[in-house]
C-alpha cells in the first residue's frame, strides 16, 4: 500500500461540481421568478459539471497509470480519519484504489464523462437543466465513494447515495406523475435488498470484528474450516443486497420502471454504473463468496434465471427503452453467472464491455427518441436509417456487441463467461445451457429492435414529426462508445488468440485468493479448457449469435407484423413474456393485496369498530343515562326548591334518627 492524498480529488471534483450546479439552479429559479430566462447561466451548469467529471477522469487516469507502472500489485491508499471509534469497533474513512477499483474508476468517470457531454445536448431547453447536472454529479460522487471506500460501511454510504440519486433522477420529470411513482418503486424495492445488505454486514462484523474490506478478504481463509456456515449466510445476505441494486431475480422489477427517467440517466445509472454495483460488491468480497460453493451456486442460479427472464421478456417489448432495460437485467444476470463459476475477471470484463455497448445503445435510443419528439414505441418508428445515419451506424455497433456478433466486445466477454461455466462442469453445465438460450434470445431481440427502429417503412406521423440527426455534442459520445463497443474485446481475448487475457492477468493479484479458496472448497484443480474446446465454444457462440440475429432481423425488417404472428401461435406464452413473467402481478397478488387486506382489517375492524367503537360506545352510554335523567331538570325553580327541601328534610330525618 502506498499513501497518495490525491485520491481525494476524485471525490472532490464531482462534489464541487454538484454544489455549483445546485447553486446555479437556485440562481436560475430566482431569475425565472424575476421574469428572465437565464440561458447562459443554465448552460454554465452543464459545462461545470462536465468539467468536474473530466477532472475526475484525469485523476483516475493518473491513479491507473501509477498502479500500472508498478512492477508488483500495488494499491494506493488515502486515509482520512477515524469515523467511529467505539471500543473494539472502529471504522476508518479511507480511500483505496487497487487493480479492481482502478478499472471501475475508469468506467465510472470515463463513461460518466461521455454521458455528461451527451446530456448537454439531450437535456437542452429542459427547465431543470442545472438541477439535472447537480444530481448527475452527485451520483458520480456517490458511485466513486462506493468504489473507493476501504470499509464496508463507507461502501454502504455510497451504495445508499447512488440509490438516492437514482430515485431523484428516475423521478426527474415528477410533474408527469408516473416517473415519481417509478422512483418510489425503485427506492422501496432497493430498500428490501439494502436491509439484507445491512444484516449481512452485521454478520461480517461479528465474524471478523471489523468492517475493513481488506481485513475481511484477508481473514476469510482462516475462518473457512470452523465457521463456513456463517460465512455462507453472510455471503448470501450480501448477495441479497446485490440483487436489489443490480436488479436480479425477484428484485429486478424496479429497473424496467426506472426507464421513466431521462435517457442519459438510464444509460449512466441503469446500465453502465450503478446497477453493476452488485457485481462489484461480489468481486470485492470474492474470497467470502468463494469459500462457500453452495452460496456461489445460488448466485449463479439467480443470475442465470435472471438472464433468461430478462432476455425472454425483451422479446415482446414495444417500448425501445423497455427492451434495453430488460436486456440490462439479463446482461447483469450473465455477470453473476460468471461470478458464480469463479470467472472473476470475465465478470468484470463483461461489466466493462456492457458499460460501453449498453451505454451506447441507451444513448442511441435517446437520440432516436429526441429525433421523434419523445416517441418510444418501436411500432411507430421504422426507416430511421435514412434520417439518422450517424445514430444508425453507432447503434449497429452497439447492437452487434450486445448480441455477441463475432469479434465485437460483447462476443468475447459473454463467451468468456459461458466458456468458464462450461469448463466448471457439473451443475454449472445446466447454467451454461440456460445461458446459451438466453444468449440466443439476446441476439433475436436486439436485431428485432434494430429492424423495427431503423428499417422498414416509416410508421411515424410525417406531418407531426420530421426526424433529424442529433447535434454533434450527442453524436460525439455515441461515436466514441461505438468504437469502444467494437474493439473493447481486446481487453481480454480468449486463450487461443494472441494478446489473450490482459484483464485476467491485470486482476490476478486481487482474485488469486478467491480462486484458490474456490477450488480448494470444490476439491479440484482449476479447470483448463483445451484449445479445441475453446475454439468449439467460440464457434458455437458465434453461430448462435449470427443465426438468431439474422432470424430476428429478417422477421421484423418489414415491420412489426411478426409480433402478431408469434402471439397468434402461442398466445398464453406471449402474454406471459410480455408481462415480464407476470412478476408485477405476482407482487400484487402476494404482497400488495395482502398488505391492503391487512390494512383494511386494521382500519375498519380494529380501529373503527374496536377503538372508535369503545369511545363512541361510552359516549352513547352516557347519552342514554342522561336522557333518562333529563326529566328531573324541567326548568321550574319550584321543582328544584322542592327537591332541595326534600333532600334537606331527608338529611334532617336521618340525622335525628341517628
Amino acid at each position, binding site marked *: 500500500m502506498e499513501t497518495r492524498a490525491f485520491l481525494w480529488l476524485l471525490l472532490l471534483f464531482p462534489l464541487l461540481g454538484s454544489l455549483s450546479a445546485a447553486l446555479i439552479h437556485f440562481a436560475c429559479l430566482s431569475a425565472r421568478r424575476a421574469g428572465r430566462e437565464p440561458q447562459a447561466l443554465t448552460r454554465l451548469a452543464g459545462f461545470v459539471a462536465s468539467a468536474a467529471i473530466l477532472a475526475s477522469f484525469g485523476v483516475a487516469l493518473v491513479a491507473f497509470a501509477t498502479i500500472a507502472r508498478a512492477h508488483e500489485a500495488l494499491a494506493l491508499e488515502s486515509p482520512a480519519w477515524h469515523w467511529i471509534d467505539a471500543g473494539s469497533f472502529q471504522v476508518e474513512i479511507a480511500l483505496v484504489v487497487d487493480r479492481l477499483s482502478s478499472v471501475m474508476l475508469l468506467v465510472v468517470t470515463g463513461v460518466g464523462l461521455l454521458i455528461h457531454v451527451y446530456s448537454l445536448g439531450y437535456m437542452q431547453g429542459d427547465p431543470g437543466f442545472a438541477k439535472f447536472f447537480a444530481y448527475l454529479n452527485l451520483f458520480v460522487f456517490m458511485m466513486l465513494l462506493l468504489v473507493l471506500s476501504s470499509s464496508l460501511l463507507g461502501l454502504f454510504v455510497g451504495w445508499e447515495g447512488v440509490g438516492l440519486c437514482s430515485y431523484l433522477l428516475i423521478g426527474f420529470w415528477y410533474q408527469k406523475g408516473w416517473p415519481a411513482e417509478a422512483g418510489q418503486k425503485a427506492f422501496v424495492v432497493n430498500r428490501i435488498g439494502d436491509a439484507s445488505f445491512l444484516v449481512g454486514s452485521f454478520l461480517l462484523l461479528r465474524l471478523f470484528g471489523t468492517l475493513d474490506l481488506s481485513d475481511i478478504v484477508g481473514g476469510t481463509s482462516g475462518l473457512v474450516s470452523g465457521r463456513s456456515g456463517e460465512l455462507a449466510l453472510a455471503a448470501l445476505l450480501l448477495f441479497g443486497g446485490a440483487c436489489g441494486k443490480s436488479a436480479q431475480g425477484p428484485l429486478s422489477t424496479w429497473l424496467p420502471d426506472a426507464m421513466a427517467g431521462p435517457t442519459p440517466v438510464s444509460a449512466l445509472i441503469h446500465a453502465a454504473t450503478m446497477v453493476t454495483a452488485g457485481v462489484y460488491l461480489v468481486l470485492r468480497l470474492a474470497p467470502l463468496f468463494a469459500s462457500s460453493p453452495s452460496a456461489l451456486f445460488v448466485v449463479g442460479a439467480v443470475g442465470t434465471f435472471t438472464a433468461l427472464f430478462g432476455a425472454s421478456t425483451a422479446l415482446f417489448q414495444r417500448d425501445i427503452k423497455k427492451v434495453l432495460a430488460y436486456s440490462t437485467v439479463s446482461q447483469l444476470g450473465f455477470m453473476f453467472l460468471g461470478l458464480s463459476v469463479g470467472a472473476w475477471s470475465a465478470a468484470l470484463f463483461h461489466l466493462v464491455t456492457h458499460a460501453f455497448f449498453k451505454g451506447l445503445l441507451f444513448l442511441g435510443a435517446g437520440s432516436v427518441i429526441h429525433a421523434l419528439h419523445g416517441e418510444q414505441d418501436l411500432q411507430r418508428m421504422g426507416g430511421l436509417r435514412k434520417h439518422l445515419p450517424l445514430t444508425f451506424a453507432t447503434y449497429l455497433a452497439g447492437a452487434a456487441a450486445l448480441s455477441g456478433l463475432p469479434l465485437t466486445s460483447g462476443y468475447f466477454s459473454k463467451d468468456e463467461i459461458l466458456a468458464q461455466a462450461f469448463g466448471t462442469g457439473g451443475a454449472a453445465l445446466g447454467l451454461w445451457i440456460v445461458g446459451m438460450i438466453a444468449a440466443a434470445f439476446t441476439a433475436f431481440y436486439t436485431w428485432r429492435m434494430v429492424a423495427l427502429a431503423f428499417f422498414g417503412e416509416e410508421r411515424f406521423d410525417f406531418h407531426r414529426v420530421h426526424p433529424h440527426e442529433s447535434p454533434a455534442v450527442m453524436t460525439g459520445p455515441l461515436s466514441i462508445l461505438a468504437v469502444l463497443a467494437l474493439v473493447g474485446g481486446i481487453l481480454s481475448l480468449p486463450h487461443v488468440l494472441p494478446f489473450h487475457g490482459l484483464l485476467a492477468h491485470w486482476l490476478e493479484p486481487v482474485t488469486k485468493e478467491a480462486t484458490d479458496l474456490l477450488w480448494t472448497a470444490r476439491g479440484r484443480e482449476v479447470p483448463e479448457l483445451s484449445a479445441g474446446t475453446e475454439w468449439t465454444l467460440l464457434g458455437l457462440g458465434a453461430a448462435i449469435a449470427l443465426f438468431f440475429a439474422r432470424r430476428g432481423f429478417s422477421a421484423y425488417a418489414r415491420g412489426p407484423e411478426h409480433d402478431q404472428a408469434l402471439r397468434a401461435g402461442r398466445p398464453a406464452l406471449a402474454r406471459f413474456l410480455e408481462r415480464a413473467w407476470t412478476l408485477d402481478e405476482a407482487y400484487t397478488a402476494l404482497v400488495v393485496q395482502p398488505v391492503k387486506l391487512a390494512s383494511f382489517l386494521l382500519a375498519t375492524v380494529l380501529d373503527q369498530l374496536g377503538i372508535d367503537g369503545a369511545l363512541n360506545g361510552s359516549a352513547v352510554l352516557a347519552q342514554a343515562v342522561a336522557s333518562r335523567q333529563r326529566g328531573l331538570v324541567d326548568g*321550574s*325553580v319550584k321543582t328544584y326548591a322542592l327537591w332541595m327541601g326534600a333532600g334537606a328534610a331527608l338529611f334532617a330525618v336521618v340525622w335525628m334518627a341517628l
Partner: protein
Amino acid sequence: MKVPTEHVLCLAAILFGLGVLGFLVRRNVILVLASIELMLNAANLSFLAASRHWAGTPGGEPLQGPIFALFVILVAAAEAAVGLALVIALYRLRQTVDLDAANELQG
C-alpha cells in the same frame, strides 16, 4: 316572665314553614323573594333564641347569635338587591313577573 325557648323555636319553625310554603306555591317572583326573607328571618329568630338559651352557661357566648343574625340580615339585603334586579331583567324579557314563565333552561 320569660318566654320559654321551645316556644320561640316553634314560632321560628312555623315562620320557616310558611316561607317554604310561600316559595313553593306563589308564582309572583316578588312574593317568592319575600318568602325567602321569611325563611331567613325564621333562621335569625332561632339564632337569637339559641343565644339567649345558652347565655350564662359555661362556654356560652352571648354575642355569637346576634352577630350571626346581623350577618344574615346583611346577606339578605344583598340578596334582595340582586334578586330585585333579576326581577326587573325578567320583566323586561317577559313583560311578566310570573316565575313559571322562566323555564327555558331544562333538559
